[in-house]
């Protein structure tokens, strides 16, 4: 089965510190993108960062970066200099193909708390 696993239901970090959220996936795609989304209390789903699987360089967006290990099918999100506004649910997503159609599968999420 093609799945996406986030093994940390909850994480906490002190303001200004760094935190890493884990994600593993299983896809049969050979050329694909991976995504991290943030869902704050407003429940909007906001794209945080995406990683192209055929690129060895890890993606970076300001304070957000990815540690992508293709062979291990691991795609973790690192948040540096954590801010109170980073508190949210974080979901990783990977593509799967079923019945000839490709779609994104989301993990169950990690709730991040930022302590002042």
């Amino acid at each position: 089965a093609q799945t996406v696993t986030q093994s940390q239901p909850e994480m906490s970090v002190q303001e200004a510190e760094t935190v890493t959220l884990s994600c593993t996936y299983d896809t049969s795609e050979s050329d694909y993108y991976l995504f991290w989304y943030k869902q704050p209390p407003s429940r909007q789903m906001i794209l945080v960062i995406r990683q192209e699987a055929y690129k060895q360089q890890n993606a970076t967006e300001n304070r957000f970066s990815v540690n992508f290990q293709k062979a291990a099918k691991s795609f973790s999100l690192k948040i540096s200099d954590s801010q109170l506004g980073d508190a949210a649910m974080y979901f990783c997503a990977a593509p799967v193909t079923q019945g000839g159609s490709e779609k994104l599968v989301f993990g169950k999420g990690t709730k991040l708390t930022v302590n002042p």
Partner: protein
Amino acid sequence: SQTIHQWPATLVQPVGSPLSLECTVEGTSNPNLYWYRQAAGRGLQLLFYSVGIGQISSEVPQNLSASRPQDRQFILSSKKLLLSDSGFYLCAWRRSFNQPQHFGDGTRLSIL
């Protein structure tokens, strides 16, 4: 630029009543469209997706249905709502394979 509109934002419906949630996308053509449901504190469950007008794929058997009457319009419906249909419903679109999905603001549906 592309935008996605989803409405209503909040809906309270009695058990057994019908449902219609609408989602439209602007600024692009032939998007892939998706309906998700999210229970409180949980992940996203894909309900339906569509790669073109009139093409609907169902992920989970239930009393909900979806339709795509126009290229950029996606509708989630039910003839008779159940208590278990309560939740947060999200519509999303993306341009094509390997592109990120972009989400609407969601609908909070409460069934009484």
